[in-house]
């Protein structure tokens, strides 16, 4: 009887070490002063699921992650991680930020060991092991300032992984990387997630990244979830596949319609010219500010035809407008 209980405990413990956290969020509200950021958000995520969150900047994605990490408290509503409040699971939850947030005065390996306890030797061995998993074993004793942006994010990933998290929160961690490094990192994150089976929540502004990695894509709008779409593509997903591109353009279109509702960064104009091509076509729009060119998937053009001379609204993301001195 007694022995059975101990065994049961051990099994339970072993399982909880492997398994991801189960997330349940009901009616989550967060206010900063008079400003309400989350307006009764509901979200349920199964253990081991990979959920990608998209949404325009300022809609409350980071706030949601910070609440899940227990870094801040909710104003109302409830967060349950395996049935318990977020504060009870701080050890199981790790977060990766857009900037790697490495301590510049610590070497790579010391950064990874932050918050670990145990003998020096043992900590170093464990740190070297995770460092090898992210492909940076040979940079263990360097200063972070010597690494490239992608390498720094790898170190940040290793620092999170060494704690064997059951929930990994990723707040636009690849946003500042170049396209090639980004795809490499996506593959790395995916393969580690598969091995360790933690629950993963990835905030991204890159819809193709959301489609590449998410089991589900969730759209947050004004502090609520307004789209929750399962991604039924087999992994690993190729960016060129037709099903991939279809889903990507659907989510993008949904995002763009939200953006069109707001009055920022938009120019009214008339379609002046359409240059058709196999995959991507160009639509040139005459606006009071000059000609604006929009690259559109040819497929979505055939689904939603445009005519020359039609009145359109060109909207663009504020973080993709490049400024140069005039």
């Amino acid at each position, binding site marked *: 009887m007694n022995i059975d209980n101990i065994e049961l405990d051990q099994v339970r413990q072993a399982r909880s070490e492997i398994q991801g956290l189960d997330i349940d969020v009901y009616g989550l509200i967060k206010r900063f002063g008079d400003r309400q950021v989350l307006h009764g958000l509901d979200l349920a995520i199964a253990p081991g699921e990979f959920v990608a969150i998209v949404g325009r900047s300022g809609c409350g994605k980071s706030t949601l992650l910070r609440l899940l*990490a227990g*870094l801040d408290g909710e104003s109302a509503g409830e967060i349950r991680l395996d049935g318990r409040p977020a504060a009870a699971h*701080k*050890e199981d939850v*790790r*977060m990766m*930020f857009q*900037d790697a*947030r490495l*301590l*510049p*005065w*610590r070497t790579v390996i010391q950064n990874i060991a*932050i*918050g670990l306890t145990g003998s020096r030797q043992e900590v170093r061995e464990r740190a070297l092991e995770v460092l090898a998993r992210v492909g940076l074993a040979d940079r263990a004793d360097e*200063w972070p*300032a010597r690494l490239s942006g992608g390498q720094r994010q790898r170190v940040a990933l290793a*620092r999170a992984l060494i*704690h064997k998290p059951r929930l990994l929160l990723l707040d636009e961690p690849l946003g500042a990387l170049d396209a090639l490094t980004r795809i490499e990192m996506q593959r790395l994150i995916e393969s580690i997630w598969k091995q360790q089976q933690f629950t993963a929540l990835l905030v991204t502004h890159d819809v193709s990244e959301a489609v590449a990695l998410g089991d589900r894509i969730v759209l947050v709008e004004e502090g609520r979830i307004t789209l929750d779409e399962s991604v039924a593509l087999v992994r690993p997903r190729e960016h060129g596949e037709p099903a991939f591109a279809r889903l990507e353009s659907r989510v993008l279109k949904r995002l763009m319609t939200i953006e069109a509702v707001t009055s920022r960064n938009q120019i009214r104009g008339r379609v002046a010219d359409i240059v058709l091509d196999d995959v991507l076509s160009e639509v040139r729009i005459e606006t009071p500010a000059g000609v604006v060119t929009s690259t559109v998937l040819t497929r979505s053009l055939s689904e939603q035809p445009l005519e020359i001379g039609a009145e359109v609204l060109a909207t663009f993301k504020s973080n993709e407008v490049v400024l140069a001195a005039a």
Partner: protein
Amino acid sequence: MADTAFPIAGAVPGGRLAALFRHLGRRLVPWLVPLAILVVWEVAARVGWLSSRVLPEPLAVVKAGVALAASGELLQHVRVSAGRAFTGFAIGGGLGLLLGLLTGSFRKVEIALDTTLQMIRNIPPLALIPLVILWFGIDETAKLFLIALGVFFSVYINTFHGIRSVDPALIEMGRSYGLKGWSLYREIILPGALSSILVGVRYGLGFMWVILIVAETISAQAGIGYMTMNAREFLQTDVVLLGIVLYALLGKLADVAARQLERRWLKWNAAYTAA
């Protein structure tokens, strides 16, 4: 074939020699002007253009130094001055560091103290000399007080700002990795504030010498300032000049020491390792 091989083989050491000269040249050229000034000065003094009452010849300064060193007097004065300076520095800098850490880390302490400290800061320490003499007389305490006061503010202000300007994103990261209290302080806040604290230390050292010189010139029973003021009475311009040179040397030494600290403690920062 052999003919062409020879000149090339000979050219290598020649090239190295030229490089060596170029290197030496670069090290030596900056010293040419000071050296020339010294020579002109020495010559002018010997020929009689410069009265030794105005400016003694450089060699006389060296001789005075040697003589005072031999009698042990020089070491005694230097020891007293340096001891005075560093005691004042330790008191003022230590208090500045402590209060800066407290006001930087705890809002309540900042609210209670910072306004007062900012008000006192606006008083130049040297303006307090008459008052300090009234309080402490002209003995050792007055000098230590003035030095400590001058050093205190530069260390205090820079420590306070150093703590306040630690990247909040790093603090948040540390918290999310389970650091709190002293471990958060040791891993993130102190190292983050360190470069600013060291700036305060360097400014403080500068202050320390200026105030030391003024305080010792006003009154002292020993120390470099006492030595020069004494020499002035007897028109020993060579000793006066020696005192000035000593102050300069000690100041330089303290600055070099502070730079070494920066290079050691901030070696992760590319700006400090390059030099």
